[in-house]
């Protein structure tokens, strides 16, 4: 060990510790600065992937989807073409291109009107940055993503009936805030997909909310709870998807609420409560928008 017989005075020890800590801190701050941009890009790509997954455009294995069959991206046309037998992983570059062409970020107000950021007088970048933490549902202008149909970019227009919508969901799990996306079909009722892109729940328990096997249950559920007779009262029906204890089959059997419920996760009671509240609280304020979107689809 250090210097046999060598004496370390307190001064020397202190100097050693200061120099060591300073060196480590210097290395780490240089590294953090160099890696900042790649890390932000990686996070953005991941969020885009999760949003496309919620919109059922990307499978959980990163394969493009078109109406539930595998598809690949045609770069010359800018559209997806079905390739049911081929399971080709999507390239990051194509994912980002598709995201930019087909996903439109818009805001909706309390009457359900859909506006661009300019029309609402908002700066998109600042709006997304400032409200990322506490969510968009309770703002006067709420964020909504419009998923455009699978058409070449020059034929896309905001007047077309969209393929679907993606609504940002946020709430609180057991340890920290949870953030996700809920994708809806054009009827603004049937779920295309649900993903969580940011969570710090216990790995293996609450953390299982990120598992595709669990998330896939949300597909084709309805967010407007049906009345016992099987009809939907859009103005008053409770909004959300309920994560039940045990299984849906056991809790509701074949009754109406089963269409708006998914199986629970063992050992993750508090996370599940958080998911239920997140869906309820994030969807509630969107009701005027959802009703308008539903009527738009019904009229076409």
């Amino acid at each position, binding site marked *: *060990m*250090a*210097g046999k017989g060598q004496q*370390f005075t307190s001064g*020397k*020890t202190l100097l*050693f*510790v200061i120099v*060591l*800590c300073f060196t*480590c801190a210097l*290395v*780490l701050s240089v*590294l*953090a600065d160099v*890696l900042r941009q*790649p*890390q932000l890009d*990686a*996070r953005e*790509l*991941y969020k885009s992937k999760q949003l496309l997954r919620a919109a059922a455009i990307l499978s959980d294995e990163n394969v493009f989807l078109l109406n539930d069959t595998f598809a690949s991206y045609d770069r010359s046309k800018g559209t997806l073409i079905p390739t049911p037998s081929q399971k080709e992983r999507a390239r990051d570059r194509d994912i980002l291109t598709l995201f930019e062409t087909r996903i439109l970020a818009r805001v909706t107000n309390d009457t359900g009107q859909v506006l661009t950021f300019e029309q609402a007088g908002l700066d998109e970048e600042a709006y997304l940055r400032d409200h990322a933490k506490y969510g968009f549902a309770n703002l006067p202008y709420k964020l909504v993503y419009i998923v455009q149909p699978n058409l070449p970019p020059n034929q896309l227009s905001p007047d077309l009936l969209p393929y679907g919508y993606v609504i940002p969901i946020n709430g609180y799990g057991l340890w920290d805030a949870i953030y996700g996306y809920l994708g809806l079909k054009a009827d603004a009722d049937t779920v295309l997909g649900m993903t969580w892109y940011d969570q710090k729940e216990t*790995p*293996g328990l609450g*953390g299982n909310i*990120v598992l595709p096997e669990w998330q896939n249950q949300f597909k084709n559920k309805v967010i407007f709870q049906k009345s016992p007779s099987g009809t939907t009262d859009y103005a008053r029906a409770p909004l959300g998807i309920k994560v039940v204890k045990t299984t849906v089959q056991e809790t509701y059997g074949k009754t109406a609420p089963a269409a708006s419920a998914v199986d629970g996760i063992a050992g993750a009671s508090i996370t599940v409560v958080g998911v239920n509240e997140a869906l309820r609280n994030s969807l509630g304020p969107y009701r005027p928008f959802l009703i308008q979107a539903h009527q738009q689809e019904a009229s076409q």
Partner: protein
Amino acid sequence: MKLRHYYTDQIWKNNQILVAILGICSALAVTIKVNVALTMSLSVIFVTGFSSLFVSLIRNITPPNVRMIAQLAIISLFVIIVDQVLKAFLYEMSLTLSVFVGLIITNCLVMGRAESMAKNVSPLPAFLDGLGAASGYALILLIVGVIREFFGFGSLFDFPIIPKSWYATPEHPDRYVNSNLMALAPSAFFIIGAIIWLRNVLAKEEDL
């Protein structure tokens, strides 16, 4: 002791997981799939190798009463480097590994090598010793990872090995089913236990 023994000894004969039972908690948590185990293994090899090297480099100027703190600072430095690099270039893998990359700091294996070997020997043997200890750890992680992924998911490196037609369907419920136990942490306990037993049996035969 020959220089290369610093490396080779640790792979099997003095394997840190099998003999010292160190580094168990991450071996249980991150061996569910082979690619996760591989990423973790490479991270630990990098951290242990370089922290041993640097602990050895400053061994003559390290005051004995702050040596543990100094070792910990060096280990943390390399762990944070790994963590930041993963977040930048393997983002989804870093989410899967979640807290376990950060927990390499408290992996007894890393500090064990720094305290019992690196601070007493010159840099090159210390570096080889660190790499060797972590390679032995990696070997066990990969064995456990292969077993768990093959029997738990029927795949290796996320590539399906067991053909889909072998699996049970509602029409043919008596066909092959993946073992759910293998997807859970306790299975790693049993597998590591079995490997420890195997090593002990083999070691006894060598003694005779």
